[in-house]
Structure formats: structure tokens, C-alpha cells
């Protein structure tokens, strides 16, 4: 088959098919008309017409995160490409494999400020893992296959392929994926065995250990999560997950101490602070995790396993670094653990667990259950209780308080069930991401846990849900504020609520109906279960407008610039105990 001649656009479509792509998310325009024409003439690849290009990238992210396969985006030149930039940056920060095809003006017009021209490769260079401008139809096939290889191997990320209109029209030779190998890109997946032995030895001799596990394990594939579970259970050690890592270890397991970080549990953060050996797998010590750097886990030896060498020693200097894919390294660790006589100190471990149980008793996620208004935590808890018997529940979120409450109160037993914008914190991520998840899993229950502010950022995608009859459930915790902004203003800026209140919100029930979806509303706690049941029983898209306590804050909270052991707990805050934040802390986000 190699050497078959066809137009650049046909090469793109054939390459997508050969890469196993079944659905792409896009929006047409002048510079991609040949591609859309080629798309029209085939039926292997389904195209989902979004309502704005940002929605296309987030949908591709949701698709990728829930399947492990790269998500594919097709947008036009100029504004099509610039609208995709937020999604690309989001995918870069959260290591999501995305291949984004952008149209470009014809090669002879590049640089002439042509209509809908922009320097796409220039604009997207810092927000992609790699990008290409293809100038010859004969290069299209190679670049397409390379793009998929780069997006999904090593630390995954977004790749842009910029395709000038004449290159789409010109005739070139097609080559299949097996004929393309990348010249330089060879990520290291196997970890160094000597270091793995050293790590296992350190782990076995730990007295107060903690596993700190992030999204890298999920990116490594479901097997990595199984291996993680096997290894953690073999050790009997506690484990905490980052926001991105939720689902890599079953949340119902005794050894799981909850999420860590700025809104992590009391026990998780104190485990991090007081541990003597920290085993970080596929996480990157970002500022939401560490709090104040010089007070971060002061007495521990740190082991860091990551596929990206640039993650090592970036924020926190570690004692032992293993470069490799989480799944491969875990497999080797288990082998080494089993072959050696590795027996943790049972007494030390028992007293460590006694300590952890005391922290757990603090019940840092508790909230007022007798409230006459709906507490947002309660709403998520009821949603979880109503769906936890099902295996096919996928949760996406927007960004803000509701996102943190969802992370705290919705529990995940399996990987790839939780889609959220962690690194970039993109409001408006959840609805299009849910759309992408639902495309990948047509019969599953997909819920976007949203805030009323975030949901308005990509509300136009309700129209896409209607067109493709996607039964996504949008579960809005409506507190009428930009809740997280309001919370910071209350706690850190003297309760001066500068521009964080949203006046004139839409009637979400009427809004749902205008998009051919079902609108539901709950105003008090007694309505909640009924609303959830009705939502779950509806086979169409739903917007559930859940009116929650407008002034509820999200706790625990490690204020910016504070250390893990300086966390604010919800019940303390009631006693007029405002946190003290240094000027340095105020400068942090």
C-alpha cells in the first residue's frame, strides 16, 4: 500500500483511520474546507460539530482521559486555532494526549497577513508538547503518524499539526503508520533496576511511609493502577492521591487516606508532613500539593518515579529519582519486593496507623448535615450514594469550589472515571469534556458537576448535546457566587467581595429546555434525592439547578504560602479564627 497517491486532505483522513480514530471534534472554516470535503466522502470517522473550538479541545480531552486513546480535534485557521489555545494548554498541563489539526492559509500566503491567518505554530509552541507546519503533501502522512506517536508516548500531551490549504489539496504519497519511526523521540519507559532495588529497600525500611500518587499512573493505563493497588496492599502503607490521580487506587480501601494538597484531607496532609519516606509516583510536587516549599515534608527521604526527567527536582529536591513509566516501574518494584525478604517493621507501621487513625477521627470533610439549605457537600454525597452501585459512572467538573467538593465527596474505585482540569484550572472544561466522554461511552452515566459561573463559560455546547442526543447530566451547585474567589476574598482579602457575585444568572431550567434538554431544580434538602432520581431516569441531557448554601466554604484549606500542618479546618474557621497569611503568601495564587 505504501506510495499510494491521494490529496493531502485524503491522506489526513486515511492516517486518522489507520491510527484507529473513530471520532473527531471540530468546527469547519475556510482553511479546512478540503479536509471537511474528504471527511464528507467517507464514513469511518464520525465528526462531532461543537459550538466553539475550545469545546472541541476539551471534548477531545474528555474522550482521551476516559479511554486512554488520543483525542482528535479539527479546527480552521486564525480564530479556530486561537480558540483552541486554552484547551491545548489545559492538555499540556494535565498530560492529556490530543492531536489538534489546524487549517492554515495556503503556503504562498503565509506571512502576508491573509484573511484568518495567524502564526499557529508560533502561538502554540509553548502550549503544546510539539507542533508541525506541513509544507508538502508528501510529508502529511509521516507528520500525522509522528503526531500520534509523540502525543501518546512518554509523558502524553497535545500536538498541533498545521495544514495549509494548498497542502490539503495537493497530491502526495501515503505511507502507513508502521513505515514511520520518529527520528529522535525515544522516551524512557523502563526504570533503572539498580535504582528500583534501592527504592524498594528504602520503602521496606520506612517507619512512617506514604505513597503520594498522581495522574501519571492513570496515563500509564489501567494496568498501572492494578499494579499500584497490588504493591500498596503488599506494603500495607497509606496512600494519598492528587486531584489528577483520583481513581488510580480504590477510594473505599482502608489504606486510602484521601486526596492531599490545598483542599486535601487532614490525614493525607499530615501524613505528607510527618512521613519519613515519601514514594511519589507520577505526580509533580506542584504548588497546590506542596504548600510552602521550605516547610514541605521536612523529615522525609523522597523517592520520585516519573516518565518526565524535567519533573525531577523541579520544585522539591528528591533523594532518589527513577525515570520511567509508572506501570513498568511498579511491575519491577513488585518483582523486587517479592523476591527479597522485604518485611516492613510491623510495630512502627502499627503505631503510624494509630497516628493516622487519630487524624482521621478529626473528620476533616464533615459538614452541617442538619442544615435547612442544601449544603453542596451533601448534594455531591447524595449523587455519589445514588450512583455508587454502578460501574459506568464518569464524572467531569468545572473549576472552583464544586470541583474540590466533588474530589472530596465523590469517590472513585477505578481510573479513567474522573475528568477535571487540574493544572490549568480551566473554568468551562467540564461540559465539553463530558460530551467527549459520552461520545466514547454512549451508554454510560456521564455527569458534569458544575458551578453556575463555570458552566456559562462553555454553555453553548448544550446545543452539541442536543444535536448528537448525548444524555450528559449537568449537576450545577448553584451558589450564585464565584465560590472559590468569594472564599479567598472572605478569608484573605477582608471579605471585600470584589466582582465575585453574579447578578442576572439565567433560569437554568428554561435554559435547558431551550436546548431541548430537561431542566430540574432543587431548593431544599428534601428535594435533592427526588431530583437526582429524576435526573438519572432521564435519557436526555439534563441541567439540574441545585440551589446550595451561597456562603459555604471549602475546607480543609492550606492557605497559599502555608505549610501542610497549618491547614484551616471548617469547624475552626467558625470561631472567628481567620487565617494569618504572610505578604509572600498573598502574592501566591
Amino acid at each position, binding site marked *: 500500500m505504501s506510495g499510494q497517491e491521494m490529496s493531502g486532505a485524503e491522506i489526513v483522513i486515511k492516517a486518522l483511520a489507520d491510527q484507529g480514530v473513530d471520532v473527531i471534534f471540530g468546527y469547519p472554516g475556510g482553511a479546512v474546507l478540503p479536509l471537511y470535503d474528504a471527511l464528507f466522502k467517507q464514513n469511518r470517522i464520525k465528526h462531532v460539530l461543537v459550538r466553539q473550538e475550545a469545546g472541541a479541545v476539551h471534548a477531545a480531552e474528555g474522550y482521551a482521559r476516559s479511554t486512554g486513546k488520543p483525542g482528535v480535534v479539527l479546527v480552521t485557521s486564525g480564530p479556530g486555532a486561537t480558540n483552541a489555545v486554552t484547551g491545548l494548554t489545559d492538555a499540556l498541563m494535565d498530560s492529556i494526549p490530543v492531536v489538534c489539526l489546524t487549517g492554515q492559509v495556503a503556503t504562498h500566503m503565509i506571512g502576508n497577513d491573509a484573511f484568518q491567518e495567524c502564526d499557529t*505554530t*508560533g502561538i502554540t*509552541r*509553548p502550549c503544546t*508538547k*510539539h*507542533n508541525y*507546519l506541513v509544507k508538502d503533501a508528501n510529508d502529511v502522512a509521516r507528520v500525522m503518524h509522528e503526531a500520534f506517536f*509523540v502525543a501518546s508516548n512518554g509523558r502524553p500531551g497535545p500536538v498541533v499539526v498545521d495544514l495549509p490549504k494548498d497542502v490539503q489539496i495537493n497530491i502526495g504519497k501515503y505511507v502507513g503508520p508502521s513505515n514511520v519511526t*520518529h*527520528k*529522535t*523521540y525515544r522516551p524512557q519507559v523502563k526504570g533503572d533496576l539498580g535504582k528500583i532495588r534501592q527504592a524498594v529497600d528504602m520503602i521496606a525500611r520506612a517507619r512512617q511511609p506514604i505513597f503520594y500518587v498522581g495522574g501519571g499512573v492513570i496515563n500509564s493505563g489501567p494496568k498501572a493502577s492494578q499494579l499500584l493497588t497490588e504493591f500498596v496492599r503488599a506494603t500495607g502503607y497509606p496512600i494519598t492521591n492528587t486531584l489528577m490521580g483520583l481513581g488510580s487506587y480504590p477510594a473505599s480501601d482502608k489504606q486510602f487516606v484521601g486526596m492531599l494538597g490545598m483542599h486535601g484531607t487532614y490525614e493525607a496532609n499530615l501524613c505528607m508532613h510527618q512521613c519519613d519516606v515519601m514514594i511519589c509516583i507520577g505526580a509533580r510536587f506542584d504548588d497546590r500539593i506542596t504548600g510552602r516549599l521550605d516547610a514541605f515534608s521536612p523529615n522525609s527521604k523522597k523517592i520520585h518515579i516519573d516518565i*518526565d*526527567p*524535567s519533573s*525531577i*527536582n*523541579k520544585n522539591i*529536591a*528528591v*533523594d532518589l529519582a527513577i525515570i520511567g513509566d509508572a506501570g513498568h516501574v511498579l511491575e519491577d518494584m513488585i518483582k523486587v519486593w517479592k523476591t527479597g525478604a522485604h518485611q516492613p517493621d510491623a510495630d512502627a507501621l502499627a503505631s503510624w496507623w494509630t497516628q493516622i487513625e487519630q487524624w482521621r477521627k478529626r473528620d476533616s470533610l464533615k459538614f452541617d448535615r442538619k442544615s435547612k439549605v442544601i449544603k453542596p457537600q451533601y448534594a455531591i454525597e447524595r449523587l455519589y450514594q445514588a450512583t455508587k452501585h454502578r460501574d459506568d459512572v464518569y464524572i467531569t467538573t468545572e473549576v472552583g469550589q464544586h470541583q474540590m467538593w466533588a474530589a472530596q465527596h465523590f469517590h472513585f474505585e477505578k481510573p479513567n472515571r474522573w475528568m477535571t482540569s487540574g493544572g490549568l484550572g480551566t473554568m468551562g472544561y467540564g461540559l465539553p469534556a463530558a460530551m467527549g466522554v459520552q461520545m466514547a461511552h454512549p451508554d454510560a452515566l456521564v455527569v458534569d458537576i458544575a458551578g453556575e459561573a463555570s458552566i456559562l463559560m462553555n454553555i453553548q455546547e448544550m446545543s452539541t448535546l442536543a444535536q448528537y442526543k448525548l444524555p450528559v447530566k449537568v449537576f450545577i451547585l448553584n451558589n450564585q457566587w464565584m465560590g472559590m474567589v468569594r472564599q479567598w476574598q472572605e478569608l484573605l482579602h477582608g471579605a471585600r467581595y470584589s466582582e465575585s457575585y453574579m447578578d442576572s444568572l439565567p433560569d437554568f431550567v428554561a435554559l435547558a429546555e431551550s436546548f431541548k434538554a430537561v431542566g430540574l431544580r432543587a431548593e431544599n434538602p428534601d428535594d435533592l434525592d427526588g431530583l437526582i432520581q429524576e435526573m438519572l431516569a432521564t435519557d436526555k441531557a439534563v441541567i439540574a439547578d441545585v440551589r446550595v448554601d451561597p456562603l459555604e466554604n471549602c475546607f480543609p484549606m492550606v492557605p497559599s504560602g502555608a505549610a501542610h500542618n497549618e491547614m484551616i479546618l471548617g469547624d475552626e474557621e467558625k470561631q472567628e479564627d481567620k487565617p494569618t497569611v504572610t505578604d509572600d503568601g498573598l502574592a501566591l495564587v
Partner: protein
Amino acid sequence: MKQETTIERHIIAVLVDNEAGVLARVIGLFSGRGYNIESLTVAEVEHESAQSRINIVTTGTPMIIAQIIAQLDRLVPVHRVTDLTEGRHLERELALIKVQATGEKRLESLRIADIFRARAVDSTDRSFVFELTGSTEKLDDFINLMRPLGQVNVSRTGVVAISRGPIQSDSLK
């Protein structure tokens, strides 16, 4: 592990595919992450495989330098990254220095050039252009001696460097 805070100067050699945008990627990495570039040279060194070598002189704490190397290595078109400062190495810079002077000062510039083994590659009755190769410090010293003699225009290449001794496998040394 202690976090060291001393600022060090390093010369990093990067072998890249000579493709469009590769230099922008490298420079963008430095500007985007707030790293310093003291000098940068780039030229094709392998014509058949279309590979270029970039020599970067940068400064930072040991942790930052390690980050720079890891971040460079992560760029897709990068083949290899080598920190030449780790071992014995040679570094050279070339400068073309135009000195505008007449009379005794003009002669003085020629005498200094002789001491520095700079070659006069262009001359008029009011000026010389000297070509000088050497370490960055040597070039700095020469230029500083020329400045009092008249108006000076300088064009410098930035540092190119290579390790001493035989070729070491899988590195740019």
C-alpha cells in the same frame, strides 16, 4: 537533599534536527521559564542528517541548570544535550572589532592587537578591523583596551565549545 543557591556558569551543547522552528523552541524555553542566556551559537554540523549544534552559555543554581538540561532534552527535535562544564573542555569565541582612530592611537591599537595575536583584516587611514579568537575574557580584555583609543564597534559570535580528549560515546563531548 540540600538546595544549593550558588550561581554557576555552564556551557550546554545541544544537538538538534535542523528543522523549522527548532531555534524558536529552544529560545522560547529559556524565555518562557525565566532562564538566562548569556550567549548562544547555532550552526549545522552534520549536513547529511541535517543536524545542528547549539552552544548555550547560561547561569543558574545547580537545580536550575539540571532543570534546563532536562527541559532541553524533553524537546522533541533534540537528539542529545551535554553539559560541557562538567569536564575539561575548550571554549572559544570569535570577534570582529572595528577601531576608529588616527595617529598615535591608531598605532597603539595595532601594537595591542599584536600582543593579543589579533589579525588586522581591514584597514583604512582612520580604522582597523581586527579579528580575534579566544576565551570570552580575552575578548573582553582586548575590547576594553581598544575603547580608550577611539570609537569601537564589536561583533561577537558567542561561545563555541568542545570537550578535550577523544570522542566519548553518546554525548557531544
